[in-house]
């Protein structure tokens, strides 16, 4: 049974002076699902790119179906049946489901004319392999992320894939969709096709993978059956040190001072009758699965998709939030989930980014920007948030992921908000930087603001929050003090009673 499909042998890859992969060897059996984990920069993506032929290794070789390659070209890799599904799912939003699934075959077959019947039968064949029904005429742009993912898998199978590599496939999926994806992966494995599953979500690793490989600093440090690993062990091997949470310094909320009070907050098809209070120095967690109304609530509080009804009282003053401008002028800050797209001006300098929100206050008496004030300000925040950079004149794009997230925080902190809303601030951030961002959030709250943290990462909430609200189907269904709840209970509540009907489709 344990026939080997892919054997990676003593692969080393350097970029300049940096060793990205250091003498790495592992195997993937036919029909096996291997999960690959590691922090950013641990060598996972380099490994994928070597297998798919985008990079060639400095030494070592690949054996695919017992055929040796010292380096493999992208075409050879495809011909050996290796298919990579990237995070953008490689889809054409303007084309139909059928065409999206069949397009690889059409391009390869080098025909001049298109036979739509043939396209549809090819596509149907692909969908049959994943055992999912999606209307063939639908435009892919109208589909959910989960369905686009399934289409990418169907496409790979249709191209006779022997090994499908999925790069963080569950980032944008709801819990129910993740389950459906896992079912599809199991089906695919049962057909003798192997999968490599790259993930940051440690809880999923034990659910899907038969074997887990952990990379750290370019080396393989663990290669064990997934059932023998628990989350703490995985974390330990990823970071190289254990994360001690026994003496975290939580901020102490002043319960007599209410910073923000929300009552009867409602937005059609998003959330209903949401009420809560946020105290000074408090970190309030809001959790719920994708589609529970969690993100929608965050966007409504920030005025991006305002609520239809309800009242907001900020420091005893009733305010209206109908736009982002209303939110910021009242002192509400927002750290978005997608920091690259929404949080930063990537090509602009670090100091421009830090001062972006408060540029008005840097004016001198001639209404010009005071350069000296600006550099003082940016120097101060770079120091306080420990942003690692040789100069604040460098573009924000020169920073690593963790440092970029700090820069987003710096931008909002310079603005001195009364309330700071963080929406999944550590998505796609590795375990090490994650811990540092958590430290930062707790510190921030102690300086006197109210912090709302939206996240579905239960350990994250337990490490940072004073209180946690649970949302389900657009309503708040639980209010827990951190000291009086544990991760298991929260996890149980999180996935409890997950009705298949999406909130957006009710009524």
């Amino acid at each position, binding site marked *: 049974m344990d026939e080997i499909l892919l054997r990676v042998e003593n692969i080393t890859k350097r970029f300049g002076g940096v060793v990205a992969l250091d003498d790495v060897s592992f195997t993937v059996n036919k029909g096996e699902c291997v999960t690959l984990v590691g922090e950013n920069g641990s060598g996972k993506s380099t490994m994928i790119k070597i297998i798919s032929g985008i990079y060639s290794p400095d030494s070592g070789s690949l054996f695919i179906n017992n055929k040796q390659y010292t380096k493999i070209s992208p075409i050879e890799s495809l011909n050996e049946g290796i298919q990579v599904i990237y995070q*953008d799912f*490689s*889809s*054409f*939003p*303007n*084309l139909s489901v059928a*065409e999206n699934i069949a*397009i*690889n075959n*059409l*391009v*390869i077959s080098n*025909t*001049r*004319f*298109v036979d*739509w019947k043939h396209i549809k039968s090819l596509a149907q064949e692909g969908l049959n392999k994943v*055992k*999912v*029904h*999606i*209307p063939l005429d*639908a*435009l892919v742009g*109208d*589909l*959910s992320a*989960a*369905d686009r993912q*399934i289409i990418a898998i169907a496409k790979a199978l249709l191209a006779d894939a022997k090994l499908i590599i999925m790069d963080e496939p569950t980032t944008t999926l709801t819990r129910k969709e993740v389950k*459906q994806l896992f*079912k599809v992966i199991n089906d695919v494995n049962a057909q003798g096709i192997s999968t490599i599953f790259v993930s940051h979500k440690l809880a999923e690793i034990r659910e899907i993978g038969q074997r887990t490989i952990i990379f750290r600093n370019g080396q393989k440090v663990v290669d064990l059956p997934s059932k023998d690993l628990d989350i703490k062990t995985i974390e330990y091997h990823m970071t190289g040190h254990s994360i001690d949470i026994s003496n975290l310094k939580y901020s102490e909320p002043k319960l007599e001072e209410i910073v923000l009070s929300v009552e009867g907050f409602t937005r*059609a*098809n998003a959330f209903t009758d949401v009420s809560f209070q946020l105290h000074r120095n408090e970190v309030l967690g809001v959790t719920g699965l994708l589609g529970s109304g969690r993100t929608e609530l965050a966007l409504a509080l920030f005025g991006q998709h305002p609520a239809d009804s309800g009242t907001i009282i900020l420091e005893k003053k009733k305010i209206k939030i109908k736009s982002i401008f209303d939110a910021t002028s009242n002192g509400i800050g927002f750290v978005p989930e997608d920091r690259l797209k929404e949080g930063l001006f990537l090509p602009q300098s670090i100091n421009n980014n830090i001062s972006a929100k408060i540029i008005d206050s840097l004016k001198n008496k001639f209404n010009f920007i005071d350069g000296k004030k600006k550099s003082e300000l940016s120097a101060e925040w770079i120091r306080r948030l420990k942003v690692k950079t040789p100069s604040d004149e460098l573009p924000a794009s020169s920073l690593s992921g963790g440092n970029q997230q700090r820069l987003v925080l710096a931008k909002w902190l310079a603005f001195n908000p009364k309330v700071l809303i963080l929406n999944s601030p550590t998505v796609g951030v590795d375990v090490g930087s994650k811990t540092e961002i958590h430290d930062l959030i707790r510190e921030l709250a102690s300086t006197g603001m109210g912090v709302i943290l939206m996240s579905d990462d239960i350990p994250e909430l337990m490490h940072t929050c004073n209180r946690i609200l649970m949302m389900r189907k657009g309503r708040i269904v639980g209010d827990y003090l951190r000291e009086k709840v544990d991760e298991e209970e929260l996890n149980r509540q999180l996935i409890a009673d997950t009705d298949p009907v*999406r909130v*957006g*489709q009710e009524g």
Partner: protein
Amino acid sequence: MLKKFTQTNEFLILIIIIVLSTVVGLINPKFFSISTLFDLIRASNVYIILAFALLPVVILGGIDISFIAIAAMSAYATHMFLIARGYTGGILLYFVIACIIGGLAGLLNGLIITKFRLPVFDVSLATQTMWYGFTLFFIGATSNFSIPKGLVGYYANYLAKVTDPVTGDTGLHVSIIFVVVIGVLMHLMLKYTMLGRNIYAIGGNKDVAIRTGINHNKVTIVVFVIMGILSAFAGVLQSAFSRNFNPTLFIGQNLDVLAAVIIGGAALKGGRGTVIGTVLGVLLTQIINRSLVLTQIPAEWQKFFIGLVLIIFTALPALRQKRAARLGLAVKSEVSGS
């Protein structure tokens, strides 16, 4: 099937055309006449062919403004060349030579865009100015009215003729055949050839198209050659209609053609657009032009109305998306049994 059609852009333009025609017809009954229809068709033919030239470029995700300069240069250069040689024949040779020149000019656009990886708009901004300048400086700066014998009566070469008591003789011009043939070929190319599907794929997601193995440069170059050929064809046709060859033909009309293509449902960001929609888009803009004359609304309003229609049609996809987002996603998958 019917329900699906009523949700299309084409259906909406059709409704607007019908409503507009009815209103204009009620104000001025002259609008409902065969001669008006034939006039409308003749005037639209040239612009439909120009719109066909632009359509694949827009689907590919580019905005070209140089096609009118290519049209002017090709038609004018062909005419001056043939006149100098004492040509007395018909329009066919005009089409052949102009289309070769136009195709080469389009090729130049395509090569610059693919070789230097430049945005379509930037390149076309340069080549538009360049071709108009080239024509005026090297070929001639004034309109030429000496028409070869074989081309003299071409503007009135009708398939069917009607006599209108007010406007005199008019008819269904023979150029309708070109429009139909080019339209059918364009539709077949876009829908049933790999070239056409590759154009949509690149317009939908260029990076993925390249990753899929589509020869992006080749497709781009072919699209621009097609653009050059069809522009030149339209240039000759328009010159034959107006019985003079003008070095600044179509100048300033590139955005009107683009507007018609966009109204016809093509997306500026690429990936969408149809032949039928494009034809309807041109017809609608032409009807707006004409109806305002017939209802004695001042000509300045024409542009205003076309602008208004353009706002509606560019806002439409955004409105649809907003509605879809509110109602939840339209399409759902099901895990089949087992």
